[in-house]
Structure formats: C-alpha cells, structure tokens
C-alpha cells in the first residue's frame, strides 16, 4: 500500500513523542518527566487493552494506544483523581483510556492535510484486524515503569 504524501508526517516519531509527553505532562501527571521512550526490546503487555480512534481522509489512519489492564487502571485513577486503592470499573477505564486516544488522535489529525473527521474511541481486549493496512509507526513509552504503546496505521 502506498501512503499519500499528506500522511508523510506520520512516519516521523518525534511529533508522536511530543504529543504523548504533552498529554501526560498536562493531563495525567501535572508535571513533565514521567513519560519517557521505552528502551530495549519491544515489551510484552500483560492483559493488553487496545484503544483507538480513526482519522478519515485519503486513507483512514488509525491511532491506537496499547497498555496492560493494570497500567490502564493506573491511568484511570490518575485522570479521575481516584485513590490508589479504589477499584476501576470498565466504564471509567474505557472513558479514561478512550480520552487519551482521542487527544492523541486529534493532535495526530492536525499534522496532516485535509484529514477529514475523527471517530469516537473504541476499547477492546484484542488487537483489531489490520489486514490490508500499513503500519506507519509503532513505539513504546514507559510510565510508572510499565510500557505503553502507540501505533499509527494507514488502512485501506
């Protein structure tokens, strides 16, 4: 699959790093320095959850966050100012990680020309079918010692 020129910015890792770190600095941690590029081998996510939004346009770009359930629960507690001992229900989990995907997706959308519309977030237990798509970027960050993935796909 050939990627249109307008999607070329999405093959550069730096803007994704900036978007993710800005998001965590302002909305999750309240200060910089807690989200950092993951060093070493690609990590394994325990009890993984996949959260994505799609950006329509010449091709559909899928912006997907990947995290273990426990990491997602930590994120949910941080965003909803919950106590560390409070249990996280599925609705709050989906809301919190969905909003993170929404913010990353919206900022990715602003990187391309004539991007179309942004869909509402979807959260699943299994990786979505990307058959026929082209992976533009997949990278991992560390947050509280656990891995968080961000992937961008161009879908046919």
């Amino acid at each position, binding site marked *: 699959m050939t990627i249109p020129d307008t999607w070329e910015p999405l093959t550069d890792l730096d803007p994704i790093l900036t978007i993710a770190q800005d998001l965590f600095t302002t909305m999750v941690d309240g200060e910089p320095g807690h989200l950092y590029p993951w060093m070493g081998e690609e990590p394994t996510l325990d009890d993984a959850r996949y959260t994505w939004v799609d950006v329509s346009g010449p091709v559909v770009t899928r912006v997907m966050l990947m995290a273990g359930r426990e990491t997602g629960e930590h994120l949910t507690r941080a965003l909803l100012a919950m106590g560390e001992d409070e249990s996280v229900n599925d609705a709050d989990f989906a*809301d919190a990680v969905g909003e993170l995907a929404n913010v990353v997706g919206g900022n990715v959308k602003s990187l391309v020309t004539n991007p179309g519309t942004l869909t509402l977030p979807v959260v699943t237990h299994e990786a979505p079918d990307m058959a026929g798509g082209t992976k533009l970027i997949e990278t991992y960050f560390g947050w509280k010692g656990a891995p968080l993935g961000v992937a961008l796909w161009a879908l046919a």
Partner: protein
Amino acid sequence: MKALVIDDSRVMRKIVGGILVDAGFEVVEAENGQDALDRMAEHDDIGLCCIDWNMPIMTGFEFVVEVRKHAEWRDVTLMMVTTEGEQDQIVRALAAGAHEYVIKPFTPEVILDKLQFLGLVEIEETV
C-alpha cells in the same frame, strides 16, 4: 456564575469542571450537545459553556449553531475545548459563534487565561 461543561468523557468533564469550580464557578455537566440544550433550558443562569467538538447524538459545533439561533442565550459565552486543532475547524467554530478555542491537552492556566481574557475571572498577579 454558572458554567456548563459539555463533553462525552467523564474524565474531561471532571478535569474542566474542577478548574472552573476552583475559579469560582458553579458547574453543570452535559454528555452531548442535545443534553446540553436540555440543561440550558433548565438553568436560565448559565453564563459560560465549555464545549467538546466530537460527541455522539449532537456535536459541539452543532450545539454552538443551535445556541446562536436563540436570542435568549445571546449573552452566553461559548468556549470550545477540543482535540480538533486544525485552523479551518477553529475558524468554523468562531464564525458559528464560539468566543474562544482551547485545544486538548491543556493546562489549567490555559483555561484560566482564556477566561480572564473573556472577563469571566480575575487572576491575581504575583510580584
């Protein structure tokens, strides 16, 4: 002043609502544009709306257009708070009647600066 926070995400309603409460607002919440119109009809003293763009049932943009059709709501300040950061989206929202535009992610200071610019809060300067 009473403020209406319109976002389909409870997380975002909590974050934006918290900033507004700290700034002295009484906050009412709505999950989408239609829900927000219902809240506007219930509360005739809402002076500020903070509006997400992408929501189910009725978008924030559609809400702005609808509000501006009502003369009784002409003094309500409308501020978009959204991930939609393209220039043409911002121009569309402002042309439709929004007063200000905040792109997610944001800090509390960004929201407060906009509210100060709009004359809705006073921020004490520290020397």
